[in-house]
């Protein structure tokens, strides 16, 4: 646990405490940590294990089972390309291929500058505006291959600034 800062330890302890009255709180704890930190590295899992008494093997099993939980940090902008059926039949695959080509990463990977993570989404329920792309929660309706560069540029301009 040498890598975790005192403030991180404090915050994770608080998250665990938040759910102490729940009967089986592991999913809730991990969801909270994921949304707070963007990933759940091994030393955080060890800390959760110490605090809850759940074996770290079990925690690791859960973290790696669910696609929302990540062992590695994600990019500042998570580009989610919907590949639900409605988006797929309307060309979602060509959209993700274009993002992959222009960003130089495969789905699931993060660009070396840490700016973008490309991910394939399984239906975000926005089928009426297919194909849809969701970047950090903002949804881009009716995407076309031609618009991909423009969208990437929009975020490149924002850059790493907060």
């Amino acid at each position, binding site marked *: 646990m040498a890598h975790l800062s005192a403030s991180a330890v404090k915050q994770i302890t608080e998250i665990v405490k938040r759910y102490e009255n729940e*009967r*089986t*709180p*592991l*999913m*809730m704890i*991990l*969801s909270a940590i*994921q949304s707070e930190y963007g990933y759940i590295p091994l030393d955080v899992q060890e800390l959760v294990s110490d605090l809850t008494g*759940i074996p770290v093997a*079990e925690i690791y*099993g*859960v973290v790696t*089972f*669910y*696609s*929302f*939980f990540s062992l590695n940090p994600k990019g500042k902008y998570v580009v989610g390309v919907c*590949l*639900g*059926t*409605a988006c*797929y*039949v*309307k060309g979602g695959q*060509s959209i993700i*291929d*274009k993002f992959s*080509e222009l960003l130089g990463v495969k789905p699931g990977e993060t660009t070396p500058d840490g700016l973008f993570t490309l991910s394939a*989404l*399984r*239906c*975000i*329920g*926005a*089928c*009426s*505006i*297919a194909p*849809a792309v969701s970047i950090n*929660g903002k*949804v881009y*309706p009716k995407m*076309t*291959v*031609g618009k991909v560069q423009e969208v990437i540029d929009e975020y490149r301009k924002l850059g790493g600034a907060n």
Partner: protein
Amino acid sequence: MVKTEKDLELTAKSCAKNLEDKFSGASGKIAVLICSGTGCLATGAKDILATFQEEIKNRKLEAKVEASKVGCFGFCSQGPFVKIMPKNIVYRGVKASDVSEILEKTVLGDEIIERLLYVDPVTKEKVSKLEDMAFYKKQIKVALYGCGIINPEDINEALGYGAYQGLKRALHMDPQEVINEVLTAGLRGRGGGGFPTGRKWQFAHDQVSDEKYVVCNGDEGDPGAFMDEGILEGNPLGVIEGMTIAGYAIGAKQGYFYVRAEYPTAVARLRNAIKQAEEMGFLGNNILGSNFSFNIGIRLGAGAFVCGEETALLNSIEGKRGMPRPRPPFPAVKGLWQKPSIINNVETLACVPFILREGASKFNALGTEKSKGTKVFALGGKVNNVGLVEVPMGITLRELIYDIGGGIPNGKKFKAIQTGGPSGGCLTEKDLDTPIDYDNLIAKGSMMGSGGAIVMDEDNCMVDVAKFYMDFICDESCGKCSPCRIGTKRMLEILNKITDGKGTLADLDELEELAQVVKANSVCGLGQTSANPIVSTMKQFKDEYMAHIVDKKCPAHVCKSLMKYVIVADKCKGCTLCARNCPVNAISGTVKQPHVIDQSKCIKCGLCQSNCRFDAIIKE
């Protein structure tokens, strides 16, 4: 606080009056309702609402105009929608920049803005009322009750629109009578299985235990389906009421919603509705002055499709990997934390208040002999009117696709409609006049599923569609059973081989054999049904498989290895646009002369075709 039935009566009465006054104009205000479903939110509904509120404030119109959210109108492809009451004028495709004009002309004045009206594609007439649109004519709202009418974030509007009248009646009956009412109604599970809901309740009711649970399955992972999302966003209180009634019927004190994390709006509205229901006393101890106490919690999914399987869902709530449990014991005997539990889908629970409020006979008057009531479909893909539709069971696919869906866009030819998602199958032209119900769809080689209905046209390759679903299942298989874990991977590899043009006829036999093995040897529904999309497309579209294998051609020009882009010399004007934009410099030619694509360099990205202004580039 609503502590007694008398309180509910008084509150409901005053809420109903307020709602009526809001819509009739008796409140002295004009009501502007902005559709705030996920589809409309993604295309700007949030900005539209904010702009209305800002303009109302700036122009000091607070006493005259009120802008508020409503749940999904259903007609998502035409959104965002704005409805103005009591004038009953509906605008579609609204932008925030239209708000000022709408306020001036239609809200304050009496002018209709023609360009924002819906144009009927058949009659070419402009339509200003929802009820006059062909899309709505065959629809009946039971599960989607209140969606598009009430503000889903305001419990008072729900109370003014019948909320808790079903629970009130249920509390006058004993639990067995409530179960009988649901049995008489003929309600079957809307998540896809179609198991009689009343029987599920009966099993759990008959168990003796101090602890029982009601779990609502809102893990709508079927790609292309958003029925539960629409219901939870449009009238979350209806589902909460349904769950409360279920709790009373089986003798549970606690319920849980399990909702996928991909639906942030639905989760926020559900949380808000639970909070309001608690504050008013509809959740907690001694509900409506009875001896019945009930509480509800929310659990979020974390992106695993298999958690839609009920026992995997229970494991997920218990903080474990979402892997299915062997059955028996069934959840009704040993469910959540080993206690008797029922797991009902969102849409199933949304039907329950209607059944109790209006009576079982009102519900079973709708539908076919064995499938009663209505079904919500998420109509999507290659159909003009994409959206959420609720129709009585027994309507035909033709009515769904053509009368409600408005047919296939761009004059293309209908090829198939896929129902039941990754567990379902495709229905074709010859099935169009089949009345939709649980048993008919199974007999035709598909299934009702949760309600995803994806229309495909001549441009969709059915081998590619089968591959899409297999890729999905392969990815989502939890890995517990080797037939599912390994079998789906092998099937996917064979499909990849076929779409790459390397398939052989023996591959078809192997696919069939693998499909049988995986079906017979998997523990849960995910594995057992995983081969359905392959089996169904192989049966209905054998010719397409043969074309890929024997002729090495993809008839729909989708599979990249089996198609190429070519420039039609007669149509090419030599504008050079394609050549300049080609990412791999595969296009050459002189200005004003027809260009040529070098097939050895082409990566088939399709950019040239989408850029060409003369339709000179075709796939073959």
